[in-house]
């Protein structure tokens, strides 16, 4: 190793909690969350940005945790599935997913729920095609997607008061 790598100290607010760590620049956001903060609810599926398993929210927007460096997240507000769950904002989604069996192995589920939260924020009344389009960047191998679309449709309808 000829180059000296400078570690960087970053602080961020993760699920409402302020954290500070000294890290290598090459550490991805998802590895930071999983290994440094031990928030293992966010998963790694490809490290190419394609499968969506690592999707988390940074400053209110979903991002691929594998394509963001942890050092880039300094000063940001990060929300992971644990935070969304503990905070109660996805209770109706969790219930609908549970009842419709929209989670099988559960590996895609956190990233998928994160994406769904953003979908329903930008489009509270999506039709099935729109749901599928928004989820087109989240790979699920178990369900074949239909149960997930059903569950999201149920929640969207309920939230509308229908």
């Amino acid at each position, binding site marked *: *190793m000829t180059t000296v790598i400078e570690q960087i100290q970053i602080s961020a607010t993760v699920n409402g909690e302020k954290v500070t760590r000294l890290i*290598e620049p*090459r550490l991805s956001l998802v590895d930071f969350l*999983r290994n440094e903060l*031990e*928030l*293992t*609810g*966010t*998963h*790694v*599926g*490809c*490290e*190419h940005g*394609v*499968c969506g*398993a690592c999707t988390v929210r940074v400053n209110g927007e979903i991002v691929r945790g594998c394509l963001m460096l942890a050092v880039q997240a300094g000063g940001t507000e990060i929300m*992971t*599935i*644990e935070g969304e*769950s*503990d905070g109660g904002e996805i209770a109706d989604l*969790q219930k609908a*997913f*549970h*009842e*419709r*069996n929209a*989670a*099988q*192995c*559960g*590996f*895609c*589920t*956190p990233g998928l*729920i994160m994406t769904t939260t953003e979908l329903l924020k930008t489009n509270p009344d999506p039709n*099935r*095609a729109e*749901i*599928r*389009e928004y*989820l*087109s*960047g*989240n*790979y*699920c*191998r*178990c*369900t*074949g*997607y*239909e*149960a*997930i*679309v059903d569950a999201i449709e149920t929640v969207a309808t309920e939230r509308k008061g229908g």
Partner: protein
Amino acid sequence: MADMIKDHILDRPNSYIGKTIPRPNAKRLLSGRGTFTDDVKLLRMTHVAFLRSTYAHAEIVSIDASAAKESNGVVAVVTGAEMAEVCSPWVGVLSHLEGLKSAPQHALAVKKASWQGEPVVAVVANTRAQAEDAIELVEIEWKELPVVTDMETALDADTPLIHPELGDNLAWRRELDVGDVDGAYANADHVIEETYISNRHTGVCLETRGILADYNPGEDQLTIYHSTQAPHMMQSLFAKHLDIEEHKIRVICKDVGGSYGIKVHSYPDEYATVALAYMLKRPVKFTADRLESFTSDIHARDHRIKTKIAVSNEGEIQAFEIDDLTGIGPYSVYPRTSGIEANQVVNLTGGQYLNPNYRAMATVVLQNKSPMCQYRAVGHPILTMITEGMVDDAARKIGMDPLEIRRKNLVPDDAYPYTAPSGLPFENLSHQASLEKLVKMMDYDGLRKDQAEAREQGIYRGIGLATFIEVTNPGPAFYGVGGAPISAQDGATMRLDAKGNVIVEIGVTEQGQGAEAVVAQCAATALGVTMDKIKVIAGDTDITPYGGGTWGSRAAGIGGEAAVQAGKALRQNIVEVAGIMLQSDPSTLDIRDNKIVDLADGKERIELSEVGRVCYYRPDTLPKDYQSELVVTRHYVPKQFPFAFTNGVQGCYLEVDTNTGFIDFKKFCVVEDCGTVINPQLVDEQVRGGVIQGLGGALLEECLYSPEGQLLNGTMADYLVPMAVEMPDIVVGHVESPTLDSELGAKGAGEAGTGGAPAVVMNAINDALNPLGGKVTVQPFTPERILQAIGKI
């Protein structure tokens, strides 16, 4: 001792059998509180990364790991020769696949690497990144060897031998010739030949393979967290190849992020990881990354099949013949072998039809490509595609509707038990009833009308039908008879604890299909408790009964039945104690809704928790000569039939855009007969997920290799898996033909969706293209192949 409980599981009051219950263990997955193998952290844990061969076939001349050993954070660097001193090689053969041969395979390649991606050197470091940095410093001198990557020429005289000591590149050949095929050809009105190709593809589990092994010399115990489907099998294999006694090894399955058969095999890098933990006496974790997953997970379904079907003008199928060539890897995978997929193709092609004349040859050849082995629906997607493709070919030839030819030739529902020409015994299938149900569900006549109207507008829509047989609930005939350490039986231990709650320890395992929920439903029903009282423990070789894990769609049928028998036996023991406590004849008592009740009228007598309290805290109040036993274990293995065959039929209506070759699904229906349905939603979701996985292989997935044996598309961007937009909604219906081989009567359902999907979509595409004179026969049926078929390009 009162009589054994005589009631039948399907007659139980407050039964959970046939009920859609949300899975109790899914809640943690929805809150990000699951524990997958990579989530587990142990003290002083290290990480291993593997230097993998970039050549498909090359001699390892020398390895210089000196610089790597000095790299930051590195704990150890181990070569194949060093690893071989700790971990013995294996040979992936089974005695019942006569003639199957394979060379010994090591955890890390020793003399040469035989496929691109084969692990060669292991680097253990404090972090994965550090291990990867060190890998870049390992210097290897390679001598390239000629590669064998064309299965058509693998057996030619001038093709180099991958393992000269084997004498050729043939792993296995199987031939079958029953009835009078040549006589049938002589008399047939038509003999139609076609060649079908299923291209190699792979499982792409979202959670990649992972294993974390730790050796504690103070206890002489190896503890292994493993994302596997078969923990007892793995325990056995690690014990054998590390020369450790089995009970000193504990395999624990945490949450598994999808498996589909990919994780039921043993892998060299996993043996290496366990061996490293044993050598280093500290935890070593291996989590495959996606790139290495593509080259090191097993591949499957690489077949070229020449087919022939003889048919009369009246539509009677008179002979089937197949010549199946399949290319595996350089080794037959261990311990289940790479011959089973071809074996299934021979066993089940044409099996749903009355025709008695069948000839088959399967040739399994070695290749310098990733090893190949069982993947969801093993062989069925291929055999169903060729069977149903041949039947549609015959129908087209004689101008008969594909529905009619099937009605004429499917084995009637009253023909059972029935033995297929290949010798496989079918207990009871419902091809005819399932087909008629599908016809109604999809409004077949309505679709034919719609198709005709669309054609007048120059729009090409097609209907596809695919009947299928799917093997489930395997007995020892699959592996045990061949010598594999794979348990065909499973057990359930059920215990009532002091407060009335119930623990069920089960040998089948969970990967998201709902095995734990189904077991809980069976246990709760058999015992008479509510689901919330049950805790299921699975996936731990120290705790659960010895079992086979989950594969071959066996969890519900076999695990469920073990839970039923255990539940009944525990109920027997409980009512005995209750009888003493209540001074009633135990045969007049039952357990319902967590209470002891009178059998006759359901009158509540005492809480189960009362029984627990007395047995555990106040045994002094029970007779001195009586010992209560609130823990029971029962095992189950299918005995009457070697497998519980299921059947079903898929129907698909789609539109082919003849300008782009793109497909738009209009309707997709499946009728599945898996016997007793324990949890309807879970079964339907297995069908749906299975279909979509099958459509992946049918339309998108293909492992593309260069002639030099390099995998060209081993990333998630280049290897295409089904995503949400392109996939259909699926309507699922059922016929129920329970097996009499168990009380529950449940057969398996996990793989049927995948087995039928390629056939149904191929037939639909070809039905759509028929007026244009084109057909597709090479899977995946890409836009390019579709446009080529109709001469657009």
